[in-house]
């Protein structure tokens, strides 16, 4: 229990310790796991990157985004297009275009030939889309369920668009069969391990970034916007701007996760970016504890891991288990598994209820009092 408490309580020293522990575990994994399991873990880490972003946007900012598959997919498809072009060689045409398309590379694929512009586009395209969409939505004060529905519709539309453009996006088949990642042979186990380490490193950096954002003034504003948007506005801040920033950061994290997912999983298809996977991302975050720092990461990895191992033991039984777990967490632990530690601690301390922080009163907030930023004595 002490380990769990240390992991999940966001005190400074403890966060650092938890972070160091997570880094050590991630670095140790290649020594313990078989290449196949390591590959799986690398894939889970990519999905966890999406969860980190959702943790910030939903857990901290209250933006229930049901469409992170769009940004994950954008990053993934942009990277996949680059890998396909790189495999085809200079001036070459990806194999599937010869089969189903015109045999010509469409103009909008061309900027992805260069590795540098591919990486830039992976970051910039999702960021630009999220900024544009966020600005349009949040300045009109669309929030709550309306925002959730809108983001989900976007995911559905994105998947349908990809399926319809078989000649240029591979349709339902998606893009797969990549031979190399920036020149490194993907069949070589050493390179697979390198990819895992890159994914682990990027994930750790993302967690650090979220931690940094959370404890910054921006983080406090974000929580304030979540709990009392109007008050923040009356104080002279622009809540829309705060939300847009959180949404863009979450989108970029999802895109980077997608971009790394492609060489690791070896495939991206519309089934990985539509409504169902978008909700899947959310389930991990909710189970782990959306408003904690490590909750979304651990929840996401745990759910992915459980999905794989349970489906190996009981093919077809997994889906019931996921549903049951989700219902249990929502019913009994609205703050996620990460809130168990906080609850136990509070019970032990038996603090008088009057001392509970105001955040507890917010109906849809869920997180324990430890998540509300400290208040200055006016």
């Amino acid at each position: 229990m002490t380990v769990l408490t240390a992991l999940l309580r966001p005190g400074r020293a403890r966060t650092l310790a938890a972070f160091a522990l997570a880094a050590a575990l991630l670095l140790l994994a290649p020594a313990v796991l078989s290449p196949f399991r390591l590959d799986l873990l690398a894939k889970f880490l990519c999905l966890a990157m999406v969860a980190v972003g959702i943790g910030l946007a939903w857990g901290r900012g209250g933006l229930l985004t049901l469409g992170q598959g769009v940004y994950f997919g954008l990053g993934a498809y942009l990277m996949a297009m680059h890998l396909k072009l790189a495999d085809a060689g200079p001036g070459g045409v990806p194999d599937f275009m010869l089969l189903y398309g015109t045999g010509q590379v469409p103009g909008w694929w061309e900027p992805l030939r260069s590795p540098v512009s591919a990486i830039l586009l992976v970051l910039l395209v999702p960021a630009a889309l999220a900024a544009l969409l966020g600005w349009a939505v949040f300045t009109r004060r669309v929030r709550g369920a309306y925002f959730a529905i809108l983001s989900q519709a976007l995911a559905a539309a994105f998947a349908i668009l990809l399926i319809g453009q078989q000649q240029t996006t591979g349709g339902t088949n998606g893009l797969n069969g990549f031979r190399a990642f920036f020149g490194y042979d993907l069949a070589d186990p050493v390179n697979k391990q390198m990819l895992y380490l890159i994914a682990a490193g990027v994930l750790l950096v993302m967690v650090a970034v979220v931690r940094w954002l959370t404890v910054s003034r921006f983080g406090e504003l974000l929580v304030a916007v979540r709990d009392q948007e109007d008050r923040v506005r009356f104080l002279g801040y622009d809540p829309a701007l705060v939300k847009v920033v959180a949404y863009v950061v979450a989108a970029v994290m999802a895109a980077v996760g997608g971009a790394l997912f492609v060489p690791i999983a070896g495939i991206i298809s519309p089934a990985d970016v539509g409504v169902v996977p978008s909700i899947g991302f959310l389930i991990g975050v909710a189970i782990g504890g959306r408003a904690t720092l490590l909750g979304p990461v651990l929840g996401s990895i745990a759910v992915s891991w459980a999905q794989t191992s349970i489906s190996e033991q009981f093919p077809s039984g997994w889906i019931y288990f996921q549903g049951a777990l989700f219902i249990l967490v929502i019913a009994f632990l609205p703050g996620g598994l990460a809130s168990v530690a906080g609850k136990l601690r509070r019970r032990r301390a038996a603090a008088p209820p009057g001392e509970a922080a105001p955040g507890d009163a917010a109906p849809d907030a869920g997180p324990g009092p430890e998540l509300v930023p400290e208040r200055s004595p006016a």
Partner: protein
Amino acid sequence: MRLRSTSRNGATRLSTVSLAALCVFALSACGARVDAGGAPSASAESCVDTSGDTVKIGFLNSLSGTMAISEQTVHDALELAAEEINADGGVLGKQLEIVSEDGQSEPTVFAEKAGKLITSDCVAAVFGGWTSASRKAMLPVFEAQDSLLFYPVQYEGLESSPNIFYTGATTNQQIVPALDYLVEQGTKSLFLVGSDYVFPRTANKIINAYAEAHDIEIVGEEYAPLGHTDFSTIVNKVKSADADAVFNTLNGDSNVAFFKEYNNAGMSADDMPVVSVSIAEEEVGGIGVENIEGQLTAWNYYQTVDSPENTAFVEAFKAEYGEDRPTSDPMEAAYTSLYLWKEMVEKAGSFAVDDVTAAADGATYDAPEGKVVVNGDNHHIAKTALIGKIGADGLIHTEWSSEEPIEPDPYLEGYDWADGLS
């Protein structure tokens, strides 16, 4: 009131830790590079264990998700074949040990589970897959690991992997004979209806090329998203186009809605027959016989095929899974695929992938559909095309047959009109 920022120090320290972590990654060794356009690198060593009395094989079907309803039947047929082979003494004297995995109707999961079966379970061969997307997802995995996949479903052709055996029909064994049959019947115009994914789009590309060369007019081509159930618009278009026949490449649930709407609009098999390539005995029950009676299908096997091998297969299947369970083309192709693998392994005297593929050419098996022969060049099998009519009993009865098994030609190289396709 000013909001106060907290724990700047913590954040700085975190950044330092992450930077240190990144340095470690930078130091980690990198592996082989490839030259752009170069050949793929050498494949992994096989870990298949054939030292004991058993040998492992993998079944990879979607047991959950939208495809489960179809793929479960294939899974059942594979289980039946494995039981029969084990009861008969196994393969090369070794009992088959089955590792089942769920593809969850998602290409990414198929790729992951294929990798697991090959590298963690060390299976000698994998049987399964249904959608083209799942096969395309698994193909690079099997090629990279140099393992074997037996794929049991009719598909859009234009593929031939050294690591895959295709025991379902390719286009020249199903779609082309169906078109030949329609031409024979005097069809001059066609309306194409399909689900929006790879198989229907590729099939329709082929049909368009065929139509151009055979003076058939394509009066309409419509696609519905997979799982779509509102067909009033499409059926209206079909009705007003008044074609001689409809070529249907819809998949799954959409067929139920399409045929109900088709009947509601007052059309029937007599005035505008629909030829379907994805409706087998299993689906007829789901659509409702009354909605689809008299319509045509194109396959290579029906439950009504009259042969001693088929009688035995149907009886064994019903004894195992119940009297009400029909047998269908993909099930038969899956059942056959396991026996064909057995033939190849016994011909080769070895479970090694290279030996099995070397022995593949000419491997034969007296399948329920008739005698099938493996083509060692393109890894497809010669199959007899059958056009069937759906009867009031819910079964499909052969209306026309190609008589001889048709040699597989996945790239349609033997057809002049198909020159521009691949």
